């Protein structure tokens, strides 16, 4: 890059630092919204992926189901293609597992859940499947299981996966919406900042025109300043969201993580870099639009 252009850009930013800082703070608010939306989407997506790869069925059994029929069903299931293991979980075991998971919880609602009787937890068969089992085979298996008189209900977790997929798509939509908001904010804020800077440096532009500077030489520093504004705003937003994440992480891990079976993760590095690059590009584009009425001599 032309050193004269970078020098003029850094000199310009130093001279107008208050204006640039103000613009960066204003822009970072929009970028925080975008980064937060992406953070939520990332985690819902991870959850959806986790549940999609959980090749498991749970066949809840009717209360008082005869043991020999349950054993017979269990043996029959083991012979079905695609079934890797079948495990019987009694009401007592289900209650005990739930109690152990929720033992650390302090709030009243959970204490009430723990007080539920053993009968509230039906016995079940936990059926593990091949990861590559087809949807058709799974549907057939569920249909056949439902026909057994001892089976109360079959849980495929498919509903949850579908709900999560719907949530992910809504999250992506929200992120798209926030991206548009960010785009408009960048265009408005960087554009007006650069116009103001241009007005203040009108004399400089006029001099440059007189001495034979090309368009790119004249515009270069302003584009760099706009790009830097966008990139710095995005980086600041990442720092803010990161700080919020660090502060809330322990609480999230205690509450949400055990419930959904995943760790709440921060934005992956590629996404972070992408947001900053997006900010830089948007800033440059906005600056370029702001320079349409560049002084001509």
């Amino acid at each position, binding site marked *: 890059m032309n050193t004269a252009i970078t020098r003029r850009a850094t000199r310009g930013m130093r001279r107008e630092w208050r204006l640039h800082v103000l613009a960066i703070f204003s822009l970072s608010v929009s970028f925080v919204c975008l980064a937060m939306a992406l953070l939520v989407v990332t985690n819902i997506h991870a959850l959806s992926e986790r549940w999609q790869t959980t090749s498991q069925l749970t066949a809840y059994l009717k209360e008082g189901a005869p043991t020999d029929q349950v054993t017979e069903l269990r043996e029959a299931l083991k012979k079905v293609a695609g079934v890797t293991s079948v495990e019987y979980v009694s009401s007592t075991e289900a209650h005990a597992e739930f109690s152990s998971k929720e033992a650390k919880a302090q709030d009243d609602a959970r204490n009430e859940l723990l007080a539920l009787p053993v009968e509230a937890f039906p016995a079940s068969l936990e059926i593990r499947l091949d990861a590559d089992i087809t949807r058709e085979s799974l549907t057939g298996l569920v249909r056949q299981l439902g026909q057994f008189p001892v089976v109360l209900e079959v849980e495929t977790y498919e509903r949850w996966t579908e709900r999560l997929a719907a949530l992910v798509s809504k999250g992506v939509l929200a992120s798209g919406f926030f991206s548009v908001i960010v785009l408009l904010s960048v265009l408005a804020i960087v554009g007006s900042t650069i116009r103001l800077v241009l007005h203040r440096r009108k004399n400089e532009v006029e*001099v*440059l025109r007189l001495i034979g500077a090309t368009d790119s030489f004249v515009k270069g520093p302003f584009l760099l300043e706009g790009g830097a504004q966008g990139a710095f705003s995005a980086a600041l937003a990442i720092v803010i969201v990161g700080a919020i994440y660090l502060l809330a992480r322990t609480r999230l891990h205690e509450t949400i993580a055990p419930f959904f079976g995943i760790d709440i993760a921060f934005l992956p590095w590629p996404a972070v870099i992408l947001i900053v690059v997006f900010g830089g590009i948007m800033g440059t584009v906005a600056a370029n639009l702001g320079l349409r009425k560049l002084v001509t001599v």
Partner: protein
Amino acid sequence: MRAKSGESALQSDERGFRPLLRKGHRFARDAADRPILMFEEVYKSYRAGAPVLRGMDLVIERGEFVYITGASGAGKSTLLRLLYRAETVDEGRILFMGRDIARLTDTSVPFLRRNIGTVFQQFKLVETWSVYENVAIALEVLGLPQRLIRSRVGEALERVGLAGRGECLARVLSGGEQQRVAIARAIVGEPALLLADEPTGNLDPQLALDILGLFEEINESGTTVLFATHDRSLLDVRTRRVIVLDEGKALDVPLGPPSEGELLELPH
């Protein structure tokens, strides 16, 4: 003699002046033999029915020092603005070393301006920049290396009597010094043509004479100078070719300023 540099980026060589051209454009050898400027039937008006220049013809040879004078509104500044393509002619042609300025594309205009130094009454410096930065920028647009820029700026500041003042901010200088900085900026790229639009208008008479002397020195080094002024006292300092702009035409007085009586007798 014009200062020569070993670097090829600037335009002096043994055969004489070579203009700075865009990449891919060739320098016509015979351009060096042509007059540096030719105005052919140039018309320019800002308002309908009130032309500033009406079919002006004028030839200026390489290395001349020419005063452009005339009453306020006679078209002195317009003439100079046409030369550095801040304006375009309505009719006619202005040939700068054989090339029609009006036919240059917008992207070629900067390359024209790199061959023309300009000095104005209002100095047109960036006041928040140092003296050095104000002069160096004329070479930075050419993409020259910093080492060469430093030495060329040093030479230019020395020529205008501002050696050692490079670090000063332009705004702290006096009017005369600011004009010297503007002149240094105009000549640092060794342009073929130097345009001065009322450069002494904001200066007291003694400073005006000093600045005029500076332009004469620059002219002696081979640069063609067009010096627009309405100050008759400057015209009387030395016998020079004077172009009087009157009623949109150029009246050529090769041997110095005309007396008011002579001016009345000149054919309109």
